[in-house]
């Protein structure tokens, strides 16, 4: 089995035994993978540990691992920490958004399916989460994740009649149909979420922004009054599509 070198972001960490961890890693060139890190807590007398002090959630490192897509679990053999996001840890909201990004990615992307542009987008998003631009950095990444994973909801026109949505008539979002429904089509659809038109225009504007290497450029400043309802709409779309609840949602949206 081939050993490969790749840059990875740790999306999930699970203590498997006293000495081993099972990690969900997002690698730049080999996509999402699950890997076992044996002897993760062992340390030599001089203080050296096998995986450069241990691997934590959202850590970015240069990794060496066995790669065989036919197997469920890769074996991690080396890890060299490149970014530990210490600034992120000073702010609870930043930490939660980072873990939410990790959770969404781990469910929306297929294992062993490379998404190098998405990798760059996540790395950039994590760096920006520790700044005051955290809300727009997260939403920008979330939209890009949906686009690149092929799960983007239809926000530009009515998902049923394909007519453009008018400012004058209230429209609503249908998680079941995966998009906006115009006023005339509303009676045909059960269970929709009303959605403010100004926020819809804002979301449409974000989707039209230029992108470089899979990252949305020139994101405007967003407040949580703007980002929260858009994030909620996307959450309902994702949860409906995947048929499962996102654990981080309780930490992202105040009750």
């Amino acid at each position, binding site marked *: 089995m081939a050993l490969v070198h790749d840059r990875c972001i740790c999306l999930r960490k699970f203590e498997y035994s*006293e000495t081993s961890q099972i990690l969900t890693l997002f690698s730049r060139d080999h996509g999402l993978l699950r890997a076992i890190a044996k002897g993760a807590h062992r340390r030599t007398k001089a203080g050296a*540990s096998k995986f450069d002090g241990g691997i934590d*959630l959202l850590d970015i490192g240069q990794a060496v691992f066995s790669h065989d897509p036919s197997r469920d679990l890769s074996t991690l053999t080396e890890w060299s920490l490149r970014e530990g996001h210490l600034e992120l840890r000073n702010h609870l909201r930043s930490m939660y958004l980072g873990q939410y990004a990790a*959770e969404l990615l781990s469910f929306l992307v297929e294992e062993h399916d490379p998404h190098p542009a998405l990798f760059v987008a996540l790395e950039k998003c994590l760096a920006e989460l520790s700044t005051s631009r955290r809300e727009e950095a997260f939403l920008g990444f979330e939209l890009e994740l949906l686009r690149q994973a092929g799960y983007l909801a239809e926000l530009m026109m009515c998902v049923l009649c394909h007519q453009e949505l008018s400012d004058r008539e209230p429209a609503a979002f249908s998680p079941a149909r995966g998009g906006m429904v115009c006023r005339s089509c509303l009676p045909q659809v059960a269970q929709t979420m009303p959605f403010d038109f100004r926020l819809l225009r804002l979301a449409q504007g974000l989707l039209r922004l230029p992108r470089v290497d899979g990252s949305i450029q020139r994101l405007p400043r967003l407040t949580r009054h703007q980002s929260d309802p858009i994030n909620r709409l996307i959450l309902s779309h994702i949860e409906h599509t995947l048929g499962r609840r996102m*654990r981080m949602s309780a*930490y992202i949206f105040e009750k």
Partner: protein
Amino acid sequence: MNNYTQSLQNLIQRLSSLPGIGMRSAERIAFHLLKSRPEEAMQLADAIRDVKTRIKHCSTCFNLTEQDPCSICCDSTRDQGLVCIVEQPKDLLALEAAGLYRGVYHVLLGRISPLEGIEPGDLTIDGLLQRLASGKIREVIMGTNPTMEGDGTALYVQNLIAQYPAIAVTRLARGLPTGSSIEYANRNMLADAIAGRQKM
């Protein structure tokens, strides 16, 4: 294994479910117990029963104890106004083994781990808030692990303590492990060490 009697088979099965013990070791231990004198083997059974029936969590600090409150919470020579918050009893034991800390503890019995479904309500945070409300606590030291989840738990608890402005909140220092060398320190340890450098 099918050739063993039911009770021997059962013992081997139980032993092999313990951490670090494989099937071969389980067989070796089981045959050792079978050969040993009855009182000797029963001492092991008694020790297991004692641990499960006598040890409980201290109702104040949630440390493991045979008496409630535990000996640390009852110790009048310790500073009862200084509380160090740790994740697990084994963290408390490590701090106690060093013999340097003279305050008391609060064991959370875990850390908030949103992605693994461990929520604030699963920890002993309510018990901590009751202690803080008593007005006898002056300072809280965050001794959670320096991980994303440990730091997240510390920030979450710190936000709750903010309702008591008289209580100071501090955090254990971090950076280079003493006795180690800079060469083996990772990027985070070096960043912490530089940020937390001290005047000499």
